[in-house]
């Protein structure tokens, strides 16, 4: 039953997953294609900026400004937004659409449903990030970038875990309330506030406070240079587990809608 729900969910989300992954891969490829010609001009521009500002706009990334923009802005925002929207709709969305009425009368528990749906979400995030990684890796080879497949895999893994943490929060709020709008609003609000916190506080000399933001653990350890940071991934894993456990407890205590 678990496998069947997982299969169904994956099929339901195949198109948006493929489109977003493909778009990110194409964007990454084009980004690296133009970064060669833009590189020297942008490097001289970012060299004159304060270090914190350069970091803020991603100018200090290996591969230069364009890679930085892709890794600090485009890909994480796309993955987090996708994770939140999909997570909010996974359980609560079925209640809003009314399909939960038939689904929850099948021989499957609410908790199995929630877990299967969470797994399907992780799977789709991995697929999107995998396509993105593929695009970046091919582009790095074609355009002779200093980026390696391993470094890109480390960076992509951090991004997947960042998105998974926010998606889990959205999924949990949706499972606890049955209200997808509230779920996406809560998780989306948290994502925006924590992003601004992570990006702005270092500019104000408050780097320590930026550690409160999940975004700090996405790229703060510079995975493109240093590889995977298990402790930072552990923070995401902890957020995900806490959110899921809260969702699993809450979903069993309430009335289902729809």
């Amino acid at each position, binding site marked *: 039953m678990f496998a*069947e*729900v997982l299969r*169904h969910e994956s099929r339901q989300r195949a198109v948006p997953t493929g489109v977003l992954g493909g778009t990110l891969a194409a964007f990454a490829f084009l980004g690296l294609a133009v970064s060669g010609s833009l590189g020297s001009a942008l490097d001289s521009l970012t060299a004159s900026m304060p270090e914190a500002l350069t970091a803020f706009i991603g100018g200090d990334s290996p591969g230069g400004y364009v890679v930085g923009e892709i890794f600090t802005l485009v890909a994480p925002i796309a993955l987090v937004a996708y994770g939140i929207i999909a997570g909010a709709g996974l359980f609560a969305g079925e209640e809003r659409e*009314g*399909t939960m009425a*038939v689904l929850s009368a099948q021989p*499957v528990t609410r908790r199995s449903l929630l877990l299967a749906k969470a797994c399907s979400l992780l799977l789709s995030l991995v697929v999107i990030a995998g396509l993105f990684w593929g695009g970046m890796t091919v582009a790095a080879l074609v355009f002779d970038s200093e980026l390696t497949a391993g470094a890109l895999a480390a960076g992509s893994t951090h991004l997947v875990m960042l998105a998974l943490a926010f998606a889990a929060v959205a999924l949990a709020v949706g499972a606890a309330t049955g209200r997808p709008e509230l779920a996406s609003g809560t998780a989306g609000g948290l994502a925006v506030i924590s992003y601004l916190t992570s990006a702005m506080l270092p500019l104000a000399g408050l780097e320590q406070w930026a550690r409160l933001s999940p975004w700090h653990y996405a790229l703060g350890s510079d995975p493109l240079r240093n590889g995977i940071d298990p402790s930072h991934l552990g923070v995401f894993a902890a957020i995900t587990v806490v959110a899921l456990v809260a969702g699993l407890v809450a979903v069993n205590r309430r009335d*289902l809608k729809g």
Partner: protein
Amino acid sequence: MSDEVESDEVDAAASDVDRGPVRTTPEELQGASGPAVIATAGLTKQFKDFTAVEELDLEIGRGEIFGFLGPNGAGKSTTIRMLLDQLRPSSGSARVLDLEVGPDSLEIHRRIGYIPGDLALYPKLTGTQTLQYFARLRGNVDWSYVLELAERLEADLGKKVGDYSTGNRQKIGLIQAFMHRPELLILDEPNAGLDPLMQQTFHEMLREVRAAGRTVFLSSHTLSEVERVADRVGIIRRGKLVVVERVDELKRKAIRRLDFEFDQPVPADMFEGVAGVRDAEIDGVHARIAYEGSVNDVLQAALVHEVTNLHSRDADLEEIFLAFYRSDDPPAPVPPARTATASAPRAGRRVR
């Protein structure tokens, strides 16, 4: 005069209600045996200040078709959703197939089939994909039986659900409920969108389920749908179970109607004092009579004059149903025979 009588009758009716709703137990039905398939005790659901279902005590035996009737918002779907563990009762308990709702709901779901009142399916899946999904979730579905059901209901499984008409979508929902030959079918307003021919087929399917010793819990707001197939009927009103009765018994108690046409105008008081007459509207040569019990006294009173035409209507549960659900009737539920006159004043002269 009539106001006084009506008031007395309402009081009498209310005192009847104090003794609890009229009941017919599953054991009184031929063939019903063993533990109840559905048994609720004091089942109550409160939404903030609104009590959707109050102290519901219900017992349904194996092998019967039980009609669960009430207008929209009476608490039918809330009751069903509590039986399915989709809603958690505020108080009371329920057992389905001798298993406790809540702790044993996984096993209950395995053994029941359900179609919700407002059916929604996945619009991007075809009928086949939808049924395959639910069949795999169940794991004990004979696909040839699915195809047989689809053929019987003339359901097109090839199209996407989003492109279906309401009736076709409903057919997919019905196949989904029947396909694993469940011991209990819980059907919430299942006739929605089905044309009359399909309704006949659907009723045949219900009778086959009963013949196989399985049970049907059929909710509806239309009595005519249910009286054709149900053995017993429970009527719920404002969250309270008003009556549980055999369908034939309810029909016997029903207010029936006779329309007379005379060859010349008749006196307005010609049915006054006639036994069983609950209401008489007399307008020149036409008389419309509502009565209960034997028709003999009515006919004898009418045949004093020359009758040129007579139209009778079959006993119809609709009469009872309307009597229970008229918006102006008192809040306390009352037995059907009394309610018709106590709470449903009609235009025209009233005869007592």
